[in-house]
């Protein structure tokens, strides 16, 4: 249960970056090596590795090392509209419960 929440948070974090979204779009066309990606996004290998690792932790990308080349492709998880909706719904619900708590505190003693 907690695991799911963590994975969800990882996915949101991983996607909150233009470069990482670009990487996913690129991998949607075909797999690519870290150095291909680094060249394409005009980054150092080290910088690209960091992005790829975040995407990998979130399950959005998988990598495989063959010889000296690490190849990246899209992973098993994709972000569904539905997942987004669930997260947005949770935030909304929490905000409303906060609001209810404030209302109850504000009107304390106003009873009947």
């Amino acid at each position, binding site marked *: 249960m*907690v695991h799911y929440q963590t994975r969800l948070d990882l996915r949101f974090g991983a996607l909150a970056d233009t470069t990482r979204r670009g990487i996913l779009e690129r991998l949607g066309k075909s797999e690519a090596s870290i150095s291909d990606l680094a060249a394409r996004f005009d980054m150092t290998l080290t910088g690209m590795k960091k992005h790829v690792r975040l995407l990998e932790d979130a399950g959005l990308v998988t990598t495989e090392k063959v010889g000296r080349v690490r190849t990246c492709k899209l992973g*098993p998880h994709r972000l*569904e509209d*539905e997942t987004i909706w669930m997260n*947005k719904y949770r935030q909304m619900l*929490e905000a409303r419960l906060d609001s209810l*708590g404030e209302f109850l*505190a504000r009107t304390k003693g106003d009873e009947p």
Partner: protein
Amino acid sequence: MTTPNTATPRAASVTTPAEREIRIERIFDAPRERVWRAMTDPKLVAQWWGRGNNLVIERLEVERGGHWRFVEHAPDGVHGFEGRFREVTPPERVSQTFEWDGMPGHVVVNTMTLESLEGGRTRLVTVSLFLTAEERDGMLSSGMADGLNESYRALDRVLASL
């Protein structure tokens, strides 16, 4: 007895017991009957449900099968929310469906349980069950790129609203 601090109510816990469920537990410094009334009396609901936004309560028929429909006038636009009551057991349990006009067909079943605690406090447990289609965890393919971009756009909207 210590005075419970509810000036800044916090989530006691948020968990996802199943992939389709969200459970939120809160403790309010108010007796159960008062919490129940705040959740079911239209005059009171209007004062908090909108989170500071103007709220129009078009319908609130708190009975099994009854309709509810609220329209929230938020800075980013007008949002309608509605559903029907599945179970109403004052003052301890209410179960209702929830739909947002922006995601028609994505129905959430919301079950709220109120429990009286010592010191005139109430524990409210909200379980939201998502009944939408199975999560499709399939492999991405290039053919899905349009859908992916749609998701990114939706994500951007969510992140912008955080």
